[in-house]
């Protein structure tokens, strides 16, 4: 498929811990198209962050192991590339990253300007588009681009901010800086790992708006992880739901909210606080990943579970255009959805 930017197939990642081997990702599939904003939704511990880090190639080398699967990005297999090449050619150039916690992601003892300058020295798009440029010229051109982008993310006094240390600017401003830094190298994909959870609610909305607008204008795809369905609704084109290390449903935003098909998605939507239902939780507990349930990992908490659910993991069933579900007993069957 031409429009596919990244395709994760059957990814299995396990972590070694004192208590044993934790299978944090168990056969995950994920596809993101060019310029598409994909929401990755699930409770904490479901493997969102691990998937994001696996794509970036920054899983902790001494404890995490990729056991199977492939990650094809723009025609290349990322898992086949060595760390050096990933760091040089992919990370920060084609795939950029917006961290969860803008408070600690900046290096505390260097000015913001230094950190952006260093980023541009190695990741400037001019290195590709204008390789004949001298270092001086390039850094002057980059400086202009940096200031432009800082204005676009609505930072007051961009020149002044560059001279400041991270602790001297507010959390919201730092996250704007992170967005700007992610977009500066003109990547094809930005991975935003719960970029607003650490921020005040009032700031969250502005940040999301800026991120969405800039990504759209530049045609950048975004993988946006969140545990907040409301946030996902605001910003995403499509949503993938993960449960305990497996993806269970993938759908365009409209049909995701209108026709949730996996029982877990349904419960997730039901758990949204509303005026008629109040707050409702999901019965049961998130399974331990060291000794997870067999088959569909959701079956112990599922009212529709049958013998089949314990036995095998359901295959991906297409319910409609770009809507797939992994369930033996989906709430909406393929023919109904169509």
């Amino acid at each position, binding site marked *: 498929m031409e429009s596919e930017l990244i395709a994760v197939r059957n990814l299995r990642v396990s972590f070694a811990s004192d208590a044993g081997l934790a299978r944090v990702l168990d056969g995950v599939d994920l596809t993101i198209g060019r310029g598409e904003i994909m929401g990755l939704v699930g409770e904490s511990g479901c493997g969102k962050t691990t998937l994001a*880090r696996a794509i*970036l190639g*920054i899983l902790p080398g001494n404890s995490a192991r990729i056991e199977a699967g492939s990650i094809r990005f723009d025609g290349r297999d990322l898992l086949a590339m060595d760390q050096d090449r*990933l*760091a*040089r050619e*992919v*990370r*920060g*150039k084609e795939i*950029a*990253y917006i*961290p969860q*916690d803008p408070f*600690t*992601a*900046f*290096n*505390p*003892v*260097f*000015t913001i300007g230094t950190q952006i300058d*260093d*980023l541009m020295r*190695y*990741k400037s798009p001019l290195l590709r588009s204008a390789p004949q440029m001298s270092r001086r010229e390039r850094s002057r051109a980059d400086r202009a681009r940096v200031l432009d982008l800082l204005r676009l993310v609505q930072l007051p006094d961009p020149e002044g901010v560059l001279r400041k*240390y991270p*602790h001297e600017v507010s959390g919201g401003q730092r996250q704007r800086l992170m967005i700007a*830094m*992610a977009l500066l190298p003109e990547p094809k994909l930005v*991975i935003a790992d719960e970029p607003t959870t650490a921020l005040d609610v009032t700031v969250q909305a502005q940040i999301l708006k800026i991120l969405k607008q800039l990504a759209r204008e530049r045609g950048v795809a975004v993988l946006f992880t969140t545990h907040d369905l409301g946030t996902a609704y605001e910003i995403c084109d499509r949503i993938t739901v993960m449960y305990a290390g497996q993806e269970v449903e993938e759908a365009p935003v409209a049909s995701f909210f209108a026709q949730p098909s996996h029982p877990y998605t349904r419960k997730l939507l039901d758990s949204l606080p509303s005026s008629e239902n109040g707050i409702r939780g999901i019965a049961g507990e998130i399974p331990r990943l060291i000794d997870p349930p067999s088959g569909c990992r959701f079956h112990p908490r599922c009212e529709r579970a049958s013998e089949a659910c314990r036995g095998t993991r359901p295959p991906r069933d297409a319910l409609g255009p770009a809507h797939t579900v992994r369930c033996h007993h989906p709430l909406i069957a393929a023919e109904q959805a169509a």
Partner: protein
Amino acid sequence: MKTLVLVLGRLAWFVPTIIGLLAIVFFISHVIPADPAAFVAGENATPETIAAIREKLGLDKPLHIQFWHYLVSIAQGDMGRSIYTGRPVAEDLLSRLPATLELAIAAIIVASLIGIPLGVVSALRRNTWLDHGLRVVTIAGLAIASFWFAILLQLFFSMRLGVTPLHGRVEGWGPEPITGFYTIDAIIWQDPEILLDALRHMILPVTTLALPATATIVRFTRAGVLNALQSNYVLYETAMGYPRRLVVWKYVLRNALIGTVTQIGLIFGLLLAGAVVVEAVFDWPGLGLFAVNSILSSDYNAVMGFTLIAGAMFIVVNLLVDILQGMIDPRETR
């Protein structure tokens, strides 16, 4: 402005510390001994001299008056006379200060140049044989008595192999003093022969002094680097593809060194303590040798003067380190 506030803040702690140090030395020298005057006068003093000293020290007066007199005389730079050299103790100490500083500074430089890279490498290769080996070596470096290590070095390199001088700062006379640092004076006088000779004489004493200092620096740098490597900013820098070299040797190292710098104060204490015995072994005419000779000849004023100077130097170095740390750590906003 920020720096000025910082300096003033630290000075506010400096003054009471110095007075506290004076109180301790006063207590040791005036309160503990049954007859301080006899101590000050030395072993061969006549009863008349002792009586005269007792008069001068005002030992018949109440303690707080004595302490006041003591403070006043120290403030005037009067630490009494040395029985051994016959000169004022303050003068003796001052003339020997550069020799000790030259050793200590050389040792700090050597220890940093070796210790910081080793600490970084140890952290990067954590839990490998290299890391475990360095752990044992650094523990050993802190377990060796420096006087013994100095003697072993002397025994092997000077006496057996004859490749290094046995003791002293130079053969014959040193350069005409300007700074009192032989190496620097030799450079000022453009005398390469003396410079080379002075450096040769420094090899063994500096090695001895630098050993525990290096061990300390390795351990703190390692801990600091490990701490920084597990931080969110390293995760971010890695995720954004900053080159590994840059992340480790620029971003991580700066953070780790802020912690290591605070240890320079502690290390300076190690060096000062080491200087006493190292100078004794290598006949290095600095404060330490002066202290040892004073101990051997029961030169009481001189020992107390040394204690005061050593304590004051240590406090001053810590003050400078505090200020330096405040200046290099941008988060420090006092």
